[in-house]
């Protein structure tokens, strides 16, 4: 079933990746490197946990330091590569970004031969791409006001979110320029089974969105914006990144918002390396270290909002955090895995579904 | 001749116990005076004596602390400036830079929503009155100082205010232009008959233009009277010293009888001086104008003997500085054929009419 959802293009890409692996011995294999790695990051809590659980032990073991550099926009990556001023070894990106950058030859392929053997099979589906290795799974799902709805009698599905008579009050949904969109939610709310979503029926999705639109306070475009809609009382139910709320509660903040894992949407984040990155060898050593099941689990146990990408790490996972982990076995059944391949698919004029949906959205939303 | 803009009949002003202070400084202190309709009153006084403040209270820029301002028997205190209808000409003219001459002059008419045709008519007559033909479309920057002054005057007159206030309007002009504008102002006043209150530092202006002059000092009016009276019969030493030139000699009244006194100045004795309000044995200042003193033939018994220490020539007259032993006086002598004009170092004898002398208590 997942196989069928995967596009021809993705299969092709897998094939190319394998071919490249066999054919070209990596150019950087012999080069000498300073003992450091440049990590593009926005800083904050995630990086703190990463440092404690991965980078610091890694540095202790290898002597290679992980240096933070600003998280780059895609345009900056292209500018860096084309002017030979790459100040970055790796950063966390989504599959769509990998698609765009890879197509323009701005990413260095991952050398799976430099990583532990059997890793590719140990990664979850779509976890091992030519230009990126899946390192975490994150998700967005239903969020609702804790004061407005009691736990137990709260919206439990997208159909509930669409049901304004049963769950009255304004909604806060993302617009489709965000990583995970309202299109999938609209289709599920309209009765499309979770496993038969792709290829998305865009017409049906907009028809479903027509119904909820009058009750949407605002279609937001960044996750904190959506959260702010909820905490300020402008919306009582909607969609948002679940990890953010989990972390807030863990830190002892009270956002006044609860989450529902049923029909949550998940995406894989990857570590990618730009072309001409200064420390490719060091990066692969770090990657290998991090994808070691024990190390992978150490990070995820310390940051329970993210899900694993290394299947064998499951045995080391802290059972106490299973409830808050997006792709833990108990949530897996109703999880919607976002299919980035569909979004990146281009028509004959070179426009992707992502572009087309956003253009259609812009005229739909302002009507 | 028909006057350009017919004046309103009324325009009498009365100030009653007007008072204003800034912080600790009393700027105007208990000023009372009344101005007849059509009168030309000049306020004269040293810098800081409260002239402008008085004017500002009349115009309504400044609220008095006490007292009242009656224009045609209506109290103006508390009435905003724009409802008072009092014309004001400012020292810097305050012409609106973004309006042409015609627009400047037409502004007060516009404020009164006068009809187009009437407005044009009034502007034309006002420009004629101050002789500004042909400059109607110019802007203030394109005018000379005198022309700007005329625009300011026309603008303040065009709406026929019963009362016109002018605060040193000629201050910024050169001497020639001042002279010319002085006569212009006099002519306009005579043509219109508007009540005028005028502030100046120039005594000539005050004497030439005014029906009456008010001398101010430290926020008070010292004397208010026609020019001639101010000049010839000053009520106190300040007024006497402020207006024109004067000689003051310190002396002592040694005898007083029936309105005349005998005064001793050093060694010299002066008899038959009018002595209203002066007692015997009182220290006094003896006041006499330099032009009231004449030279008599040298050796004249009755005259006072002195020596010419210095002389200053100023065209129509010569001022002599004469030393009289311990005292010193100035004598002003008109230059005319047949008049005795001594030289420096000459011994001279002086004489005067005792009636020209005024005694002020020291």
């Amino acid at each position, binding site marked *: 079933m997942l196989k069928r959802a995967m596009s021809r293009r993705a299969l092709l890409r897998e094939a190319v990746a394998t071919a490249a692996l066999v054919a070209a011995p990596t150019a950087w294999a012999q080069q000498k490197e300073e003992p450091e790695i440049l990590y593009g990051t926005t800083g904050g809590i995630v990086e703190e946990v990463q440092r404690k659980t991965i980078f610091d032990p890694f540095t202790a073991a290898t002597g290679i330091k992980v240096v933070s550099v600003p998280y780059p*926009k895609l*345009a900056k990556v292209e500018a860096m590569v084309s002017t030979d001023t790459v100040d970055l070894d790796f950063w966390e990106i989504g599959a769509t970004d990998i698609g765009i950058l890879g197509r323009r030859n701005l990413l260095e392929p991952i050398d799976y031969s430099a990583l532990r053997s059997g890793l590719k099979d140990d990664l979850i589906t779509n976890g091992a791409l030519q230009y990126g290795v899946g390192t975490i799974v994150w998700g967005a799902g239903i969020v609702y006001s804790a004061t407005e709805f009691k736990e137990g009698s709260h919206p439990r599905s997208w159909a509930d979110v669409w049901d304004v008579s049963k769950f009255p009050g304004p909604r806060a949904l993302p617009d489709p320029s965000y990583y995970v969109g309202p299109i999938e939610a609209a289709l599920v709310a309209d009765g499309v089974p979770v496993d038969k979503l792709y290829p998305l029926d865009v017409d049906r999705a907009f028809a479903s969105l027509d119904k909820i639109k009058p009750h949407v306070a605002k279609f937001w475009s960044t996750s904190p914006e959506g959260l702010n809609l909820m905490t300020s009382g402008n919306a009582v139910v909607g969609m948002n990144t679940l990890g953010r709320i989990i972390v807030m509660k863990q830190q002892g903040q009270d956002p006044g918002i609860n989450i529902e894992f049923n029909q949550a949407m998940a995406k894989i984040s990857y570590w990618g390396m730009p072309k001409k990155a200064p420390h490719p060898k060091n990066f692969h050593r770090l990657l290998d270290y991090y994808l070691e099941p024990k190390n992978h689990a150490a990070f995820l146990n310390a940051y329970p909002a993210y899900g694993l990408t290394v299947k064998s790490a499951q045995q080391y996972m802290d059972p106490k955090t299973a409830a808050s982990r997006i792709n833990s076995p108990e949530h897996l059944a109703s999880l919607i895995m976002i299919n980035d391949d569909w979004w990146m698919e281009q028509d004959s004029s070179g426009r992707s579904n992502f572009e087309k949906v956003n253009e259609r959205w812009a005229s739909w939303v302002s009507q | 001749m028909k006057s350009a803009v017919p004046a309103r009949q009324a325009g009498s002003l009365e100030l009653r116990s007007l008072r204003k202070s800034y912080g600790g400084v009393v700027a105007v202190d208990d000023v009372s005076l009344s101005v007849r309709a059509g009168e030309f009153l000049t306020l004269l006084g040293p810098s800081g004596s409260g002239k402008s403040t008085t004017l500002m209270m009349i115009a309504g820029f400044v609220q008095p602390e006490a007292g009242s301002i009656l224009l045609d028997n209506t109290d103006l205190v508390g009435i905003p400036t724009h409802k008072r209808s009092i014309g004001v000409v400012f020292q810097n003219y305050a012409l609106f830079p973004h309006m042409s001459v015609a627009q400047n002059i037409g502004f007060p008419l516009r404020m009164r929503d006068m009809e187009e045709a009437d407005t044009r008519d009034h502007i034309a007559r006002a420009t004629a009155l101050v002789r500004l033909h042909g400059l109607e479309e110019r802007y203030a920057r394109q005018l000379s100082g005198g022309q700007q002054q005329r625009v300011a005057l026309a603008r303040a007159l065009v709406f026929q205010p019963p009362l016109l206030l002018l605060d040193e309007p000629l201050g910024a002009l050169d001497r020639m232009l001042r002279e010319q504008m002085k006569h212009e102002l006099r002519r306009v006043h005579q043509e219109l008959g508007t009540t005028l209150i005028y502030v100046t530092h120039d005594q000539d202006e005050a004497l030439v233009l005014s029906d009456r002059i008010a001398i101010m000092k430290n926020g008070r009016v010292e004397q208010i009277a026609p020019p001639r009276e101010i000049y010839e019969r000053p009520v106190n030493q300040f007024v006497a010293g402020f207006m024109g030139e004067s000689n003051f000699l310190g002396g002592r009244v040694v005898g007083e009888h029936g309105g005349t006194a005998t005064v001793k100045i050093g060694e010299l004795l002066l008899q038959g001086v009018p002595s209203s309000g002066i007692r015997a044995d009182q220290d006094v200042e003896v006041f006499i104008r330099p032009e009231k003193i004449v030279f008599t033939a040298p050796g004249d018994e009755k005259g006072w003997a002195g020596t010419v220490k210095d002389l200053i020539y100023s065209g129509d007259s010569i001022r002599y500085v004469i030393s009289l032993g311990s005292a010193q006086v100035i004598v002003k002598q008109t230059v005319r054929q047949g008049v005795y004009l001594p030289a420096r170092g000459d011994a001279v004898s002086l004489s005067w009419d005792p009636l020209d002398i005024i005694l002020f208590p020291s």
Partner: protein
Amino acid sequence: MPKLRGPDTVNRAAVMLLTGPLLFLLCFFYVPLIQTLWMSFWIDGVFTFSNYERALSSALYLNAFVWTFELALFTTILSLVVGYPVAYVMATGGSRLRLFILICIIMPFWTSALVRTFAWVAILGREGIVNSSLMYLSIVSRPMSLVFNRIGVFIGTVHVMLPYMVLCLYSSMHGIDRSLVRAAETLGAGRMRSFFLIYVPQTAPGIISGSLLVFIVSLGFFVTPAVLGGNQSPSVVVLVERHMGVMLNWPMAATLSSLLLAATLLLFAVFNRYVRAGHAAPEGQGGEAIRLYTLIAKLDQGWRPVRALWRRFSPNPLRRRRRSARSQPRLATLMAALIATITAFPILLIVLMAFFPSPSSAIRLGNFSLRWFALYFTRDEWISSTLTSFQVALVTAALASTIALVTALGLRRLPPAVRTTLVSINLTPMIVPAVAYGVSAYFLFAQIGLIGTRISLVLGHTILAIPPTVLVMVAAVQSIDNRLEDAAASLGASPWRRLRHIILPLLAPMTAASALIAFLTSFDDLAIALFLTSSKAKTLPKQLYDSMLNDSDPRVFAASAVLVGLTIAALVIMHLLRSRSMSERG
């Protein structure tokens, strides 16, 4: 014998002064920008106009252009209306009031656009303080829609544009002769009419430069309309950013940028042709005032019937007296104080929230905590980015205000047509979407080896700050009375000494204002920082942005609180020192 002001001397001086600034613009702005815009004609190595065809035929893009200009236009008009009383009170009120207003109106710059718009959402929203108070007072029965529509957008945009508008207006009010208003009153003009017919026209240069400035800055609004607006089409910069940052479609981003630039320049040309040109003002000075007066006078004329009625039914004017009219607080003062307070309010809310463990617990005062401040002061990323931002903004302020001063002096006595063209050349950096310039600048600095340095940030920010500072300085220089300089020349002062002893002292207050604008422009920039920051030089807005997107805690509030505190302290100390030295002198 040297001529005092012959055409040759003027041109030579102008060329000398203008060469430096224009070369700066050429090297650091036009060359890299044109390289980027040139991409708009290429698709897969083929020269084509198809991007333009697509942009001009798609409803999405056309709507974006319409909305962008509408946003800029209304923001400009509203900023003018709101900013005017504020500037007026700053120009006429006491120095303490001026300080208070200044502190309030620059507050929005001490936090990131995301944070301040979120605060507005909370304030104006369904359960926000405005609606709750109105409902508590039973003024309304249901919450009003104050946000997620045009109202919200314009509250948000005017909030940020206020300092730009106010500083321009203030510069033109500074030198107005108060006796003109008095004169008007003696001629029968009431307060309203003397204000509108006499005072306002004199401020025409400030109104024009302020409006121009706010207009071009508003073209670049990105976050504010997106967060506070309802379901409207995205603005042009949002699309440029999406094409460049998300889809790597450079040609389309370049196409949209070029179109925005072209449309704006066209608009300026029309504006200059019909609004500014053709006045009969002497020496080219004061033309704007005359035009504005003509306009207002026409409106005033329209009120005649109303006034006639009023006169008919109102009692004898000499009966209606106002006791102690001048001592009561003026309406304008109240308005300005209110506007300033409203401007500061969202930021004060943010400051307040920094003291609580989570935003929603701010109501329970028992939860008071300093943990976010501790985070701010112990994390190197916060301290160093704050310091970097201050360094970069200070150097930018010095550089940009110098360039603007020199440019304005160079433009001073040039013919109006030449001047207008050169001013447009100086305004362009703000019309081009900042992301487009950010990318261009990256390529440039990469070629000359400045990538990752603070110098590159300074240069980039200086380019951004040139338009506002040049606008302010050109207006300031134009308002100098030429006669003063001629007078100095007649007293034997050489051109250099005239500049040093007459012109520069007269321009000092506005040079300071332009430096402040440059400082704020640099301090608030995110678009360029996204491209030019490196591990060695990260600015605070970038750090705030990262933290906002990344951390789910209010440490950004603590950062804003620190900045607000620092600013207030700095300004108050400056004020005290100045008034102390004044009182010592006299």
